[in-house]
């Protein structure tokens, strides 16, 4: 048991904290919700130059050779600031899927430009209910002569589809199974529609109407797409937990600061025991989330299989972050319910995070399974 960070990780953490504090105030987050692109190409470039976009990739692809735990820490910092960017979709999901499929040629042709931030990729792995359905995708294919395929179906919650050069999807291939395809944006029959969700983040519906792709667009092996996604999934869940831990951290500090300032009944609200206990409840939620999420991330980083630890982390963080935002709203009162305030950004973020990859109930089922129940 060792709870301190390595020196390099500490450095990354403090640099990232400074970077996002300075460059991503809540006004920036809110302005990006109105922005067409939904991210800042200047900041994106800066992050590429800092080596953050390629944090965990091999140097031969232009990466910085960090470990997964470093990426987790970076996500925690992005979560604190609610930094809007295609990082998760492009540099994590798409990049990691490409990393997992053995084809060196594809890696060489895609990874360097993704990690430089020049090319943005995204993923369409969620069905019409918003559920990850890679094991049994509703996206269908038809095999044409000359080994080409026609894709048809709908993908929801495709991040940054409006700026992505390519989207990676898993589609069902008859007699073969789920297969991972690259779909380039210029393909005919591809249409994206903005999804106006509670967070207003840049996420889209993607309709594929008889979209033609070739055999060269298959990533990995025919029929093995679900396995590829499953390999990346535990890390995706852990990074979602990192974002939640970061968000929870900000919620605690925002609330405690306000409770010190806000005077009612002739004294700061924070001097009232009932208020203090609520604040301690949020602090407890933060510490417990941090421990259980760090545990999963650290085991993943060491390459130790840990499906139970990942499920425990997502189950606990999902409930805890949401609960923390509820308490924070209660303590903030009316001001926290205004559009002008920042708290609602976290309230919405908590809900969106809870619903991605399965809520606490879903992950408790996984924990039970791992316990032999």
């Amino acid at each position: 048991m060792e709870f301190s960070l390595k020196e390099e990780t500490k450095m990354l953490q403090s640099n990232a904290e400074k970077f996002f504090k300075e460059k991503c105030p809540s006004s920036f987050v809110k302005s990006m919700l109105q922005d067409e692109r939904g991210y800042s190409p200047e900041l994106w470039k800066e992050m590429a130059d800092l080596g953050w976009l390629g944090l965990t990739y091999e140097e031969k692809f232009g990466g910085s050779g960090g470990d997964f735990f470093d990426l987790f820490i970076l996500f925690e910092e992005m979560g604190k600031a609610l930094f809007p960017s295609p990082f998760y979709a492009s540099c994590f999901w798409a990049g990691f899927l490409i990393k997992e499929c053995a084809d060196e040629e594809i890696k060489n042709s895609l990874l360097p430009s993704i990690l430089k931030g020049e090319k943005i990729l995204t993923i369409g792995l969620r069905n019409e209910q918003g559920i990850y359905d890679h094991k049994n995708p509703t996206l269908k294919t038809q095999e044409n002569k000359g080994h080409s395929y026609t894709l048809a179906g709908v993908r929801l919650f495709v991040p940054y589809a409006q700026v992505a050069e390519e989207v990676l999807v898993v589609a069902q291939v008859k007699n073969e199974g789920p297969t991972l395809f690259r779909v380039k944006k210029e393909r005919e029959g591809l249409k994206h529609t903005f999804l106006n969700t509670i967070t207003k983040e840049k996420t889209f519906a993607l309709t594929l109407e008889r979209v033609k792709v070739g055999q060269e667009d298959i990533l990995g092996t025919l029929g093995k797409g679900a396995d590829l996604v499953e390999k990346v999934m535990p890390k995706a869940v852990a990074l979602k937990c990192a974002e939640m831990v970061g968000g929870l951290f900000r919620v605690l500090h925002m609330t405690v600061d306000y409770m010190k300032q806000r005077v009612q009944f002739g004294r700061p609200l924070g001097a009232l025991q009932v208020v203090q206990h609520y604040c301690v409840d949020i602090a407890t939620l933060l510490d417990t989330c941090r421990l259980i999420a760090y545990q999963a991330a650290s085991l993943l980083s060491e390459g130790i299989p840990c499906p139970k630890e990942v499920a425990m982390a997502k189950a606990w963080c999902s409930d805890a972050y949401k609960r923390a935002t509820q308490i924070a709203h209660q303590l903030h009162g009316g001001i926290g319910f205004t559009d002008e305030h920042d708290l609602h950004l976290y309230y919405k973020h908590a809900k969106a995070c809870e619903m991605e990859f399965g809520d606490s109930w879903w992950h408790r089922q996984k924990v039970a399974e791992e316990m032999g129940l």
Partner: protein
Amino acid sequence: MRFTFTKEQEKFRQEVRDFLQAELKAGTFVTKSGGLAEGNNQEFSKKMAQRGWIGMTWPKEYGGQGRTYVEKAILIEELFKVQAPVAYHFLADRQIGPAIIHFGSEWQKEYFLPRFVRADDNVKFCLLFSEPNAGSDLVNVSTSAKKEGEYYVIRGQKVWTSGGHQADYGWLLARTCFDPNVPRHESCSQFILDMRTPGVTVRPIINMAGYHTFNEVFLEDVRIHQKYMVGKENEAFKQIMAQMDYERAGMERLLQNYPVYEKLLSHVRQMKETRKNDPFYYWVKDAVAQLEIEFNIGRLLCYYTAWTIDQGRRPTSEAAMAKAYCNLYEQRLNDLATKVLGPASLIREGTPWTLYNGEIADCYLWSPSYTLQGGSVEILKNIVALRRLELPRR
């Protein structure tokens, strides 16, 4: 960041496990929740002492082993999983020894510490803190200690004294300054009281579970020699705050009912065989998974607290948070166990049809005490609010 144990730590854990399994086999004790309340076994303590497991974190010059608190947490985890009978030396090891090391005189260190680490006779301690009018508001103690020559003369009443009827010594908090202009928290001192001193009367209090573990203690003109005063006069609260951090830091707060958890799990595994498609089983599965998560988090909080001490920091808010969390977990565990096992789990020991010899019923009855002893959950939250979050007092 590393969430696994080193090879040496794993080896140590195995050593403890092997010892405990051998003792269980030999019939030294049986695994039943509540071991800390009932397991007063000097012979067992002596065996632990021979292995260097009493005072293992203390400096070597005081007979300790200079080992880490993480290792101590491993020891406590293994001991409590099987509810080993550690009550004889437990307080001396957990908080009396560390308090003497920090605040005691040379004489006190030389006299008490070697006896503690050997589990000699007269090592069992009780805490004489609470009074009828000083519970959570501990600074309100009114028991007086008036100086007469080389002695202090004690008058007053203590209450909720766990193990007071078995203790050789009491760790006493009493008022030594009677100037109304001096703040209450700067008016008290700590003493080591030989419980056989004339004027000490221990009367049992039977708790709501039907057990006699705590007592009320009457102190009538009890004379304590000044060499038994610990630390400086009137500085008791400074000392107690530090001592409490250690009292709260331990893994035992999570594991007082561990056998209940094991029984619950084995029951649910049987349910899976026979009632897999019962909607009740779906609920049970979910509830037990939630408990498993909470247990894992509690364990991490305890190890984190132990690690904090190993970094040379006082674990004030870490220990307070860990204890509050673990206490609440244990209450939920016992409640869930009764719900899953059903009404028969409420039948008490010695009655036909009882389940697990009434252990679940007993633990459910003990539950309300967890969030009260050693600082109520509310007091613990106050500590985190003021110390860590730095919220204003007024």
